[in-house]
Each structure stands twice: as C-alpha cells, then as structure tokens.
C-alpha cells in the first residue's frame, strides 16, 4: 500500500465545486480518459443509440440513469462503446482487453447481474496474475449500481460487494459521497488490478463539494466521517449517511459516535477501524447488504480478533435481513437499515 493519509489531506484542501455523485463519477471518467488513450468505456447504452443515424451524440442516453451522458460526445464511439446485452461477453472482453494493453472501464448496469458474468470476473481477470506467476495484470474497472431504495425490487436492488470482497485478486470500492466517488474512481482507473466500483443508485442525486482537477484518493484509507468517543460505527456506502443521521440523533442524548467509512473494502483499512475501537471500546457495523458472510461480519470478525482486548461490549451489526429486496415501499423501508435502528442498536451497547 503506497497510500498515505497526506494524500487525503491534500485533497481536502484543494478548491472544490458542488456536484452530484453521478456528476463526480462522470468527471473522474472524463479526466482519466483525457489523460490516457488506453482508457475506454463500454457497457449497455453507455453512449446510447449506437448506429442510429438521426441521433446527435448529445441526445444519446448516456446510460439508463444518464451517468455517462456526454462522454461519447467528447471521446467518440470508438472509446465509448455501446454493447449488446451480453454481460459475459463484454465484461470478459474488457478483462481480455485489460490483460493485453487497454485500461477499460466496463459498466455492469446493476450488480444483481453479476451472475451473468461472474466467471470472467473472479475466475479469469482476478486470477490471471496469480495463476500466471505474476507475469500478467488486469487493469480493468467494473462500475456497477447497488442499493435498495427506489423500489427496483428483487433483481435490481442488491449490494453483494461481500461476494467480490471475498474473492482474491479483486479490489472493492464503495464511495459514499461525490468527493469520494470522484477521487476513488480516478484511483481505480489508474490501478493495475481488477477493481469493482460500487455506485449506490440512491446517492446519484446527492450533492457535495468535490475537489477540482485530478485529485485521486488512495485505496485502503478509511475516512472518519464524524469523530466521536463513545462508539465506533463503521458504515458502508449509503449507510454512512444513515449512520451520520443516527449519530446526530444520539448526540442529542450525549452519545458521541465516531462514523468510519472504509471506502474500500478490499483492501480494508484495518488500522483506522481498530484505532477507533481502541478509543471507543464499542463497535456497530452498518451494512445494507444481506447479513450472512457479509462485509459487516468481516469487519466484526476483524475486531473480534485484533481488537478484542479493547472491546467493552458485544459487536453489533445492523444490516438488511436475510431476504431478497422487496418491492413494496413499506417493505423496502423495513429492509434498509434506518437511522432509528442504528441508534437503537448503539443504545443497546452504550
């Protein structure tokens, strides 16, 4: 790990602009694509309207959520490639291209579709370097949407970053803010390994201050989103905001929660989490993913081993239940960890 906290500090002091999470993602791609002709973008309708004669590129979709809108105008259809609906085909092509000289960004529209292309990810791209004795690399970024909250139902709302974090050879990134989205995606694109980049669809419209220019955020460096002394809350992706809301609620009662956003799950910044727990003696992990063999469980296991002696209370997890994501709004609301649930869990152990 070459990353240092200094890099992060530098980023924080740079000039900023207000933009949405979606814009920040796009901005990172634009910077990286300007910078390096080997960076290409491919996916279903990432440009939109390929081979439609009457369509001006500025009117093209830019993805179903418009996240990649405008990129085809600047970089052309040779670098912003619409693919057929053929996840194993085009994700695998991105992997093969990465192993032979390009640095592709491939968009897997929803993470729930990983079952259509997982072999090419975990079994091919992620294992090349190891199986080939260190003589290959696979610098591909797979951007994908996660998260419940828009009634997208059982096959368009999952998280499942745990599945990728489990797999050796993959790096996993889950930004919670526009600034993190931009900075981490820049790092992801320049990284020489296979990176899964999880964008939370509920956060796309969220606005925030984002440093200008080419300011990358290193992997493996957690961000303390809120300082506190009474309990450590580690929260992932959108759950950072639920945790911060819970922390506000708790603060009203005099409970000061420290909220840590690991930002990358693989590599994981063990040290920051363990240091925080050494200070607060209590841990709650908040994860929107299903609970079994989850990132939440993984972080709990880390602390139950390396941080055991500093713990004063059981480690609590607040996660989605062990169920698929329901469609109906009241069910979906019950499914996603809420600030209330988080606060209640904290109260159980403080």
């Amino acid at each position: 790990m070459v990353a240092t906290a200094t890099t992060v500090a530098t980023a924080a002091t740079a000039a900023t602009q207000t933009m949405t999470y979606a814009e920040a993602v796009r901005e990172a791609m634009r910077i990286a694509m300007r910078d390096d002709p080997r960076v290409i973008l491919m996916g279903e309708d990432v440009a939109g309207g390929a081979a439609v004669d009457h369509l001006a590129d500025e009117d093209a979709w830019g993805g179903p959520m418009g996240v990649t809108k405008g990129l085809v105008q600047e970089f052309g259809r040779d670098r912003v490639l619409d693919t057929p609906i053929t996840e194993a085909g085009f994700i695998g092509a991105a992997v093969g291209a990465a192993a032979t000289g390009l640095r592709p960004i491939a968009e897997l529209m929803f993470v729930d579709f990983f079952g259509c292309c997982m072999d090419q990810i975990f079994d091919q791209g992620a294992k090349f370097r190891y199986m080939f004795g260190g003589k290959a690399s696979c610098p591909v970024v797979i951007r994908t949407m996660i998260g419940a909250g828009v009634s997208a139902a059982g096959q368009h709302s999952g998280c499942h970053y745990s599945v990728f974090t489990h797999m050796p050879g993959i790096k996993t990134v889950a930004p919670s803010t526009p600034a993190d989205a931009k900075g981490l995606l820049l790092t992801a694109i320049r990284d020489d390994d296979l990176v899964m980049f999880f964008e939370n669809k509920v956060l796309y419209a969220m606005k925030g201050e984002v440093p200008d220019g080419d300011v990358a955020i290193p992997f493996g460096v957690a961000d303390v989103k809120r300082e506190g002394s009474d309990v450590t809350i580690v929260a992932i992706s959108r759950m950072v905001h639920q945790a911060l809301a819970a922390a506000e609620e708790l603060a009203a009662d005099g409970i000061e929660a420290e909220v840590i956003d690991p930002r990358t799950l693989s590599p994981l910044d063990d040290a920051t989490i363990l240091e925080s727990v050494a200070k607060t003696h209590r841990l709650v992990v908040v994860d929107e993913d299903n609970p079994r063999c989850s990132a939440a469980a993984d972080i709990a296991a880390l602390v139950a081993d390396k941080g055991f002696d500093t713990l004063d209370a059981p480690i609590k997890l607040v996660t989605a239940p062990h169920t698929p994501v329901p469609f109906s709004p009241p069910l979906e609301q019950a499914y996603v960890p809420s600030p209330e649930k988080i606060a209640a869990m904290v109260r159980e152990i403080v």
Partner: protein
Amino acid sequence: MVVTQERETEAGTAELDRETLLGMYERMVQIRTFEDAAGKSFAAGLVPGFVHLYAGEEAVAVGVCSHLSDKDVITSTNRGHGHCIAKGVEIEGMVAELMGKATGTCKGKGGSMHIADVGKGMLGANGIVGGGFPLACGAALTAKTLGTGGVAVCFFGDGASNQGTFHESLNLAAIWKLPVVFVCENNGYAEATPVHYHCSATDVANRAGAYEIPGVVVDGLDLFAVYEAAGEAIARARRGEGPTLLEAKTYRFYGHFQGDTITYRTEEEVLRFRERDPIAGLKRYLKEQGLATEEELDAIDSRIVDALDGAWEAAKAAPFPKPEETLTDVYVSY
C-alpha cells in the same frame, strides 16, 4: 431453415370461431388498457419502481397464449404485463401488485418486473434479460418427464437474443427435443440500441439454423399471423418433435421504460407503426367480416375499462403489506 410467413390476413381464421376471436380481441384490449393506465398511474406517482409497457405488442402475447392452458408454462421478461394478462393472471392482483399492495399477485413483494402466477402457468416476469430461457427448458423438461402433455413458451426480446442463455437453452432444447417454443418479440430495440446494431443476424429467427430447429419470422402486428405460426410451433412441441424459434416483428408504442425520452426513434417511425396498431387492425377485420359491430366492440371496451377502473380503485383502497412481511416467504422452511 428460416421461413418467413407471407400471408393474407384472412388465412388461418377459418378455424377461429367468433367467440374465440372476440376473446382474443378482449385480451388485447385488456392489455392495452392496462398499459395505458399503468403509464398514467406511474406518471401520477402511484406506481413505484421501473415500469416497462407492452402496448403495441399485444398480438404476440395473445396470438401465442391463445393456444395454451394452465398446464402450459410461460416465462416472460421485464416487459411482462401483456404475457401475464394473456396467460390469464387476474387483473385485480396485477394492479395491486404494481402499487405494492398486500392484495397484489405477489403480495407486493415482486412488483411490475416480477409478477408471477405459477398456478396459471406463468413463471414470472423476469428482471434479468435472458433469464427465462433455461427456466422454460426446465418447465418443458418437467412436462416431458412427467408426461403432462404441456408445453413451455419462452418470450424474449431482440436484445435477449445475444445472451448466452439463449444459445445454451436452444441447444439443450434441440438435443433433448424439449416441448418448448422460443418466441422472440423483436420490437427493434434493446433499450436505446437498435437491433441492427446489437444483433449480428438480420433476423433473430435465422439463428435457429445453429440448432437445426425451425425458425419462423412473422408479422408481430398481425394477430392471425402470430396465432397461426405459434399454433404450428406449439403443436409440433406437443407432438414431441422439439423446439421452434419464432420471431415476431413488433413495436413498442411507449419508450423502453416510463421516463424514457426516446430520442433514438423518429416521430415518423413511431407513427408508421402506430398506423399498424394490431388492435385497430383486428377491430377492422371483425367489423369487415361482420363478426362484430362497432357497438359490440365498444361494449367490450367499456366493460374492460370499467373492470380496470374498479381494479385501480380496489388497489388504492387496499392496505400495504405489514413491515414484518419483509421477513416471510424466503424459504418453505428454515
């Protein structure tokens, strides 16, 4: 191997009596009415999530499903409302499901993209493009193994024809001679991407050759053309002679999903297809042939609208599921 069916609208209707024809008309109008209302309700904020409308493609679902009964199984797509209605799923439950109500077909747990009614042989709309191919093979394998006499029909889009599951399933169905019919609804686009870009075959049905099974192209805006070709394919499947790939050239009148700005289609193209509206065509035919008067058809239409309005009223009045319902129905036992 590919047969493009050229036909007169009159052909093949000899076998169809008035009652059947009016039944098919009714189903098609039911679908159209359902979709128009769903679009409006979505815009009004009554329907959460993603909604993909089937309007324009009614002749395909109805032309095919008119040959099926409850023992026959269909798999569907994320554009599944039409298939559901054509297969006999109750409208009341579907409307409630769109709203996420406890009275929905799936108790509000599935929503538009996952309406299913296994008892009716409807194995689910499917949020995964290409997800239905292997499932249809499985349903056909059940029919074959248990000797039920049933067939399976897999509806899929032009975009789905590039998924690996298409290939794997057509090969499997071919070598096992499974009683299954693969029905491609080629509406010209996968989202914003036109078929001539995403698909290397001029006709999807052309791909039947790779499996040495029949491939048939029909005009998907013509109910009788679909009905006839589907009838042959389904009869063939029931006789144990294996699968058929049937491609219906059709068109979706709305965008890919509600909210789509549809910049990728020209106004002219949309109008050209709207002029060939399959329901208007059937209506004209029924009147020309003296099978129904304008008034009789209007009466059917009103009945459908009334029933649908009733369904919406009921769904609006129905309760949402209780939050604890989130935890049920994951396993049969655990």
